[in-house]
């Protein structure tokens, strides 16, 4: 009863978000000083222990994946690991415990781990519910209120339930620094693991893969609506490549009408989610940029050049400009134009081949694939500030690296890389750090990250 009361009070006081001045704005940079966080392995009472391997891995990966914390290796931790606040004593001269063993907060804030934050807790299975009690402590000595998070997370008594509590606890730890967890967002991609290229979906950590299409044809180039409820993609399911729009929950074909053309491809949504921009060979040679309603009706061309123009992406912030890929100056390059097709500008310098533009949610930066500096076909992922044309190379010729797509948080990117052999989906932070392979089955490509 006493404990329950404590939890109630603790829950009310959670999410004490640290002031931004302490750690600077949320930007991902290799040089920024990030707070040091320790997360020792949590243990579970009785039955709950069976799922703590999955829990600990998920919690660590989620928090590390946010890029907000400097994760301190577990090998440097003291031997005693607190499981609840009463296990942690503030320095007291009269303490009977020897310093350095882990019982004292000071043991964690001083070297070797020299943490700023410590996450700890434990799990138990009670009445068929997996209960995770988690705390995040600011262990630095000059802080008056050490507890940042103290909360219970509930799940089913199985691995999925343990992972769910880990995702939720991690989301709170990430939110403590003003960040946003990617848990709950979805990645759509094309996979040929069944023998045919189909559209698939998965969670941001690569778990929960599920097949969306079953055309036994070729389906590729998915994009996702701003609210995450629909996807549009290109498929040969009706012989010539055409556009399909599906709802994702439940999975349903929304019956997009394709105008008569040998090619209709690379659809993406406008920021209001009410229109589709795409490339079509209608009325000439492939391809011009078109815009149409969500059902494919009311289509009209935007661009008029007699070259190949594909992959239009409307600025998600302004809704007033489109980046796209064009062969106007020779090899494929990234261009930008207004919604009426005017004011066409090339963004990439013209060397190499550039493709796969993806807008950052802020509408100022794009990620794209570019062969600049490498042999034809050897793409790497770059980002570019559209206003200044300043670009940054994020991958460095570890196989082909293509199809970058920003996560809704604007901090992560998902992309395709052949660095591990076959085409696989990887995620990384916006500075190119923390690459993480998400898929392993068959060849996987064209990822897009939606809500």
């Amino acid at each position, binding site marked *: 009863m006493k404990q329950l009361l404590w939890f109630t009070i603790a829950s009310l006081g959670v999410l004490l978000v640290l002031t931004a001045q302490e750690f600077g704005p949320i930007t991902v940079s290799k040089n920024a000083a990030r707070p040091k966080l320790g997360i020792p392995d949590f243990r579970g009472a009785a039955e709950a222990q069976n799922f703590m391997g999955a829990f600990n891995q998920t919690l660590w990966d989620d928090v590390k994946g946010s890029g907000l914390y400097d994760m301190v290796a577990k090998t440097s931790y003291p031997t005693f690991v607190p499981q609840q606040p009463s296990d942690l004593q503030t320095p007291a001269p009269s303490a009977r415990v020897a310093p350095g063993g882990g019982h004292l907060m000071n043991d964690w804030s001083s070297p070797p781990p020299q943490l700023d934050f410590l996450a700890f807790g434990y799990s138990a299975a009670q009445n068929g519910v997996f209960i995770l009690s988690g705390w995040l402590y600011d262990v630095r000595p000059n802080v008056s209120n050490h507890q940042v998070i103290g909360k219970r997370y509930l799940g089913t008594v199985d691995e999925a339930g343990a992972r769910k509590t880990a995702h939720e606890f991690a989301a709170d730890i990430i939110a403590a620094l003003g960040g946003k967890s990617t848990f709950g967002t979805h990645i759509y991609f094309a996979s040929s693991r069944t023998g045919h290229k189909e559209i698939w979906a998965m969670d941001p950590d690569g778990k929960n893969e599920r097949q969306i299409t079953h055309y036994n044809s070729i389906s590729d180039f998915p994009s996702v609506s701003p609210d995450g409820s629909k996807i549009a993609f290109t498929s040969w399911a009706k012989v010539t490549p055409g556009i399909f729009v599906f709802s994702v929950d439940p999975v349903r074909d929304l019956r997009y009408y394709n105008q008569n053309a040998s090619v209709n491809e690379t659809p993406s949504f406008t920021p209001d989610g009410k229109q589709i921009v795409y490339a079509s060979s209608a009325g000439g040679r492939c*391809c011009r940029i078109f815009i149409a309603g969500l059902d494919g009706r009311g289509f009209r061309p935007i661009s008029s050049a007699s070259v190949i123009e594909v992959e239009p992406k409307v600025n998600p912030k302004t809704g007033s400009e489109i980046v796209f890929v064009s062969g106007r100056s020779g090899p494929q390059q990234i261009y930008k134009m207004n919604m009426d097709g005017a004011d066409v500008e090339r963004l990439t310098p013209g060397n190499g081949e550039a493709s796969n533009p993806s807008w950052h949610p802020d509408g100022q930066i794009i990620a794209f694939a570019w062969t600049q500096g490498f042999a034809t076909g050897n793409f790497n992922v770059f980002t570019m500030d559209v206003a200044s044309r300043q670009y940054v190379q994020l991958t460095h010729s570890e196989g082909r690296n293509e199809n970058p797509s920003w996560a809704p948080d604007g901090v992560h990117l998902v992309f395709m890389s052949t660095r591990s052999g076959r085409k696989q989906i990887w995620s990384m932070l916006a500075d190119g750090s923390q690459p993480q392979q998400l898929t392993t089955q068959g060849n996987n*490509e064209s990822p897009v990250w939606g809500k």
Partner: protein
Amino acid sequence: MFSKRKITIIWMAVLLALFAAGCKKKAGPPPPPPPPPAKPEPPKITPAAPVVSQFSAEPSSIQRGQSSTLRWGVTGETTRISISQGIGEVQRTGNQRVNPSETTTYTLTATGPGGTTTSSATVDVTAPPPPPPPPPPPPPTITLDKRLDSDVQDAFFDYDKSDIRSDASATLTRDAAALKSILADFPNATIVIEGHCDERGSAEYNLGLGDRRSTAAKEFLQQLGVPADRLKTISYGKERPQCTEQNESCWQRNRRAHFAPQ
């Protein structure tokens, strides 16, 4: 040895035995003798005509080129026995193998003092079954496949280009003649011109490039008189490579317009 009485008994037994035996031998009266055979009428003087006891053809039905056997037998007084159809005079009994080329009726004529008797046998000759018909032509799609495989060559392109190069121009000129012939032989067929690309450019851009290659090939063929309404185009971009090695030889093989039945 024996007493008198015993001798008497023996004698009596002997007599009794003799008597019994005598009784058995005494059968009934013998059966009446069979009646005497009837006296045949004295034969008439007038002689009978010969009798043809047999005249047959075995088998009676043959296929052209096979043979049949005539068998005959004649009784009675004869002066001449002959068979028609050129067989001529024969003995009273005999057989003769015949192989008529068409249905033939043989007539046996036996002539004697009593008159003439004829008999005929027919050998039906049927035409041999016709030779098996020539094997049916394989279904058109297979032949169309094979015709396209053997008669029509891929046209190849430069990297990131859909222009018809000089070698592709020569290839497509030959293809045009072959396609006209094939389309004439397969009046219902439609040919699909597939546009393919190598793996290097982006998949999205290559889908457009493949469309341009197939369209360029179609327009070239159209100018050479191949009916445009029998040609369709489809771009596979770089989705269906025929090789995956990362060298120019393989890349060139994949930068092509390919012909396939619809």
